[in-house]
């Protein structure tokens, strides 16, 4: 089976000293993976290389068998960055934020409005924001904004999901529902990668835990995850 994400011999970083060097990784479709580790260990760098924001200095990054450098390959990834809804200057509705997640997989010019609305509605339902679809996103709480950004990644049911600290600002009471939704998506064949410092949120649903330290990855057990994740 073609891996959802495949990284071979990756060297990448921001300056002369690489953050990642010689990194290998394969994530299968349907796997629920939690990527954890201390601040500065290289988690976000790895994510940004996979979604094409940082070009690798060396090595191969494939998304469903195609180079991540190709835009068409990246359109199969739903990505939610850590910084939330970003800096909004003008009023933007929750539905507009979520629709931006559908846009890249559609024809650039016109069309698909009905299909877009259906995909946006489904994503909003997943994060419990259906009632707030027409609200201005920067009038919402931090947690609701975070859920809107996650809905943007979920919109369109892409086969690969990468969520950077998705539970950071979210109310503990809502987290189980969101985690269960992600697990259901993994069961349906989506590769789910979650970057998290909080092992408790995903303890019962994850298939695999990757611990990153000093730019190196290793699989750890649930028990290790619990202890190392807490110390991260």
């Amino acid at each position, binding site marked *: 089976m073609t891996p959802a994400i495949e990284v071979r011999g990756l060297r990448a970083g921001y300056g002369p000293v690489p953050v990642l060097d010689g990194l290998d990784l394969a994530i299968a479709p349907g796997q629920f993976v939690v990527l954890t580790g201390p601040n500065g260990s290289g988690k976000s760098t790895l994510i*940004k290389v996979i*979604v*094409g*924001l940082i070009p690798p200095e060396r090595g191969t990054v494939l998304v469903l068998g195609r180079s991540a450098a*190709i*835009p*068409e*390959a*990246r*359109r199969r*990834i739903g*990505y939610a*960055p850590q910084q939330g*809804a*970003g*800096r*909004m*200057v*003008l*009023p*933007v*509705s929750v*539905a*507009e*934020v979520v*629709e*931006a*997640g559908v*846009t*890249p997989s*559609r024809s*650039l*010019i*016109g069309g698909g409005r009905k299909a*877009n609305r259906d995909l946006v509605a489904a994503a909003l339902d997943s994060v419990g924001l259906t*009632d*707030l679809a*027409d*609200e*201005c996103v920067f*009038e*919402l*709480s*931090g*947690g*609701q904004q975070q859920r809107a950004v996650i809905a*943007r990644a979920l919109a369109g049911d892409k086969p690969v999901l990468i969520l950077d600290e998705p539970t950071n*600002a*979210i*109310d503990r009471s*809502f987290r189980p529902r969101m985690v269960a939704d992600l697990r259901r998506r993994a069961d349906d064949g989506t590769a789910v990668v979650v970057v998290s410092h909080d092992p408790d949120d995903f303890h019962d649903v994850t298939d695999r835990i990757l611990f990153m330290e000093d730019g190196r990855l290793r699989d750890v057990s649930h028990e290790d995850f619990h202890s190392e994740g807490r110390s991260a």
Partner: protein
Amino acid sequence: MTDVDTSSRFLLLITEEFGQRALIAATLIGMVAPFTGAFLVQRRLSLVGDGVGHLALAGVALGALVGFSGVWGALVVALLGAVLLEALRVRGRLTGDLSLALLFYLGIAAGAVGLSLAGRFDTSALGVLFGSLFSLSWGDVALIAVLGVVVVAAVVLLYRPLLAVALDEETARAAGLPVDALNLLLVALTALLVVGGMRVVGLLLVAALMVVPVAAGSKVAHSFRSTLAWAVAVGGASALAGLMIAAAQGELVPGGTIVLTSIALFVLFAMVGRRASVAHRPRKST
């Protein structure tokens, strides 16, 4: 000035061809300018229209020096200047306001020197800077209409990807959208609008019509789409009302009255929006 003078001047806007041309051109530019302005404001690039406008003055001077129309000179230099501004921004050399300020001064200074070298630093230069709405030809109106149709068509067709980039450029790039091409298109459309608005409100004021109606719309809207709709209405209303005020008074520069009207509407919308936001409390919970 008597009431008869005022009303007869109003009527000139309808009965005389120069008035009709002014009405059509001003309304067109007023309504079209927010189509790029909304995206520029959302991306915190509100001053790009001003930068392109300043550079376009050098284009008008270039046209005068080499012997072709100032409009075409402005069009060429505005487009090249817009591409240059975007290239500097992408390479991280336009993150502060210093680089933009240097380009402003380059455009104005080169324009002043070029126009004086061509022996054209006269009242026509004021028309370039602040508009010459009542001296438009039907050919000018047709050019403005064509530029307006190009801008509106491009924004309508590419609305969703342009909005995705404006909301979050990094995520749009990660998702495989052609971010650089879309950004380049946006500044090129801005350059077309600058040239279209040059004869209407002038190079120094045209960017105001891209920004101020959008700022007004943002005070009462809850989405980007409704902000744009309000901005188009405010832009059109400002152009009409500003032109009527200038026509009624008889000696005011229409470019100035149009922009001042849009600023007055911004203040009005800000007051209305504040009251509305008190009534419309969002549901806060995590």
